[in-house]
């Protein structure tokens, strides 16, 4: 039941679309509603784009997990890029180092149920989970 369902490398812009489509299909298979599928796909899009923009390459991993609900979808976005200089600032709405809306990370946090971020100058790993209700 548990375990890694898929692994999508992010290296070029089009991989962002591939990652979110994979995520949407998995979410659909796990039984998430269409609204939650949109939330999950959008969160993946944000995480994958951040990898592409700020770390050039990395990967998105999908896992089925168990916890506060029997079924959850865990998404891990991992890269070996420069890391996030100021994590607490990056979580503020509107904070962007690239002229974006800066809605990405705080948005992902709101879209998903659990949000966990680790970043150093060796790279960034973000774990998010959406629970099936």
């Amino acid at each position, binding site marked *: 039941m548990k375990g890694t369902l898929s692994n999508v490398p992010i290296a070029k812009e089009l991989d962002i679309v591939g990652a979110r489509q994979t995520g949407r299909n998995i979410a659909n298979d796990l039984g998430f509603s269409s609204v939650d599928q949109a939330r999950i796909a*959008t969160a993946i899009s944000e995480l994958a784009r951040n990898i592409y923009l700020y770390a050039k390459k990395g990967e998105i991993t999908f896992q089925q997990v168990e916890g506060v609900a029997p079924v959850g979808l865990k998404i891990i976005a991992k890269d070996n890029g420069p890391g996030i200089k100021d994590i607490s600032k990056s979580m503020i709405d509107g904070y962007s180092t690239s002229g974006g809306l800066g809605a990405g990370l705080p948005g992902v946090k709101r879209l998903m149920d659990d949000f966990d971020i680790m970043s150093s100058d060796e790279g960034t790993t973000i774990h998010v989970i959406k629970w099936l209700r």
Partner: protein
Amino acid sequence: MRIPILKLHEYLLISVQVDLDDQTAMQFQEDLLSKIHESGATGVVLDLTSVDIIDSFIAKVLGDVVSMADLMGAKVVFTGIQPAVSMTLIDIGIHLQDVPTALDLEQGLIKLRRELEEK
């Protein structure tokens, strides 16, 4: 990939039928602005019925195109945003406050006409 832009009298109609990737969105921004320029269109209806993801990047590109078109004298109305997309946008905190919206293409045209008359 390019999104087709239809011209009808002084209006431009666009119905987005593909999953918007970044490149397509940027290309569309460019195409629309040059189409406004060459046609002198005063109104644009952008129908998003078939779009099932708008993330913060695409939202920024689309929001920007509205402000840019405005500078060029064309009013843009978004139509057909799906409930799931709408809720997701609200969740990530994007409200597209300055963009007029309507339920569908027909309502969009009516809204455009009214907005243009008010001017």
